[in-house]
């Protein structure tokens, strides 16, 4: 009798323990789930808060907000076209310069570079990707802008600026700051990002494929162009889009050198503004609800653009990883 009672006790304790363990497991599961959901909720909250904040401006100006180029705080008239234009143009300049250079560096690193140097240069590029954008802005403001103003920009005005048609892009005086300078700074900034992704993507090409191509007698360039780049096409576009997402949303590097002018001028040498630079420059000084709300509406536009670009980038990169 006594023995069975003890055994009964023991199994009851074991059962209670097991029940406890199940409860604790469920609690831990729910806790981690809550944290994961929190991230999703945060993104939704960001979206909702931007829409709510932008509502007064969107209501006042309607869809015309997107197409208007007026920016007149005293009269409370605001339009998003100049910042959108500046954002897109600086990002295009950054990509036009940044993509070939990053691809060049990636080809150099994967195909040409002596093995001893590969790791140090790769690490150096990744470390440079960690340098905050304000440093790039600071350098652009004190060194690149004056340098461009004295050398490159007068040269551009005197050469390309004379060509009819194309000359419009390179007209006007050399300000130093402006769309071109901002684009160049962005290009330097996205360089480490695009390079390190491109290099990673290039290294997914199977050695067998690459060696077969070399075995057929292809030159290094032919291997890169006809084997490596086609094989990694999707991933490359993903990497470029990721860089583009950075360039579109970049604030500090641009704010220093863009000139903050709400005018659309054909010349890429002229001062302009971007969405993020406008917000950074004017948000704390904005007086009046419509002014603040217009700036938040700009933020909403930026959020939608970058969300779309990053989503496509992410999708493409996942696609390569699966392959």
């Amino acid at each position, binding site marked *: 009798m006594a023995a069975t009672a003890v055994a009964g006790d023991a199994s009851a304790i074991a059962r209670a323990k097991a029940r406890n363990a199940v409860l604790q497991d469920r609690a831990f599961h729910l806790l981690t789930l809550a944290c994961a959901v929190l991230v999703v909720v945060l993104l939704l909250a960001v979206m909702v808060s931007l829409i709510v904040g932008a509502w007064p401006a969107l209501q006042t100006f309607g869809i015309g907000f997107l197409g208007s180029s007026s920016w007149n705080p005293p009269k409370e008239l605001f339009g998003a076209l100049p910042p959108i234009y500046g954002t897109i143009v600086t990002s295009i300049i950054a990509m036009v310069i940044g993509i070939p250079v990053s691809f060049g560096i990636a080809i150099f690193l994967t195909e040409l570079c002596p093995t001893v140097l590969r790791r140090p240069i790769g690490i150096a590029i990744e470390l440079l990707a960690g340098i905050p954008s304000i440093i790039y802005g600071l350098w652009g403001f004190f060194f690149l802008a004056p340098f461009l103003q004295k050398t490159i920009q007068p040269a551009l005005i005197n050469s390309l600026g004379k060509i009819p048609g194309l000359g419009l892009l390179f007209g006007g005086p050399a300000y130093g700051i402006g769309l071109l300078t901002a684009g160049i700074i962005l290009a330097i900034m996205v360089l480490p990002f695009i390079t390190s992704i491109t290099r990673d993507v290039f290294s997914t090409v199977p050695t067998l494929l690459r060696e077969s191509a070399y075995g057929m007698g292809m030159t290094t360039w032919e291997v890169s162009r006809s084997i490596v780049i086609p094989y990694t096409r999707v991933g490359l576009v993903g990497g470029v889009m990721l860089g583009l997402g950075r360039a579109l*949303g970049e604030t500090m590097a641009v704010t220093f050198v863009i000139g903050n002018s709400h005018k659309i001028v054909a010349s890429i040498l002229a001062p302009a503004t971007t969405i993020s630079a406008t917000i950074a420059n004017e948000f704390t000084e904005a007086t009046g609800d419509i002014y603040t709300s217009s700036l938040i509406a700009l933020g909403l536009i930026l959020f939608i653009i970058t969300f779309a670009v990053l989503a496509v980038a992410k999708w493409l990169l996942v696609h390569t990883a699966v392959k």
Partner: protein
Amino acid sequence: MNAYAGRRFRNNLMMGLSILASVVGLFFLLAILITLLYKGFAAITPQMFTASTPPPGQDGGLINAIFGSVVMTVAAVVVATPIGILAGTYLAEYSRGHWLGEVAKFINDILLSAPSIIIGLFVYTILVVPFGHFSAWSGAAALGLIALPVINRTTQDMLGLVPNALREAAAALGTPRWKTMLTVIYRAARSGILTGVLLAIARVTGETAPLLFTALNNQFFSWDMSQPMANLPVVIFQFATSPYDDWQRLAWGGALLITVAILILNVVARWVAGARSSL
């Protein structure tokens, strides 16, 4: 033979361009670092670590900004770390293929590279407007929101590297799953997760845009997290764009401090991650 010469020429040309691209790219990146070292070292004085930011034309330092940056970063990372690790745990361990997990992973990756100024606007509308003034708490919240996806993502990656045999062995011993996570899996992935936290600190240390309209700035040394607080990035921005030479000098000194701190964090993070893989 002629065709071969043409191909060889094209190859040499393109490879030459690729080498040129590397030289130009590395030149610009090095130019930035060298300028920073040159201008920064000239600006660093012992006073920089003892005095607060001065009015123009007077001597001063950056101690209030350094302190503010450290305090806000610590507050941000202390809150973001557990949430990020737990979220990463769910996505790596529990969600396996569930649609919610896929969505959360996707959204986390979007947040990871979302423009930080948007985070600043968000925190402004939820923490600055309701309280009616800028504060260090809201600055810390903005930085925390930037650190969270970094920690979440690295936790996912690092837990993915832990061999399944460990989970199975623990399960075979009758260990409840939460206990397996806490005592076996986290321990196995410890250095990887630490790397993630260090990278998150490095990331938020240089963030400027979200602090412009959350923590703002403060000319004086302040302990009060409910008030505006000085921080290095915003001080650098304001001082660099000012017309005063001594302010610009301090901006360069601050820029050097931030960059050195970030480079050290990155190198330590790599070293921690490397120490794990060699074990």
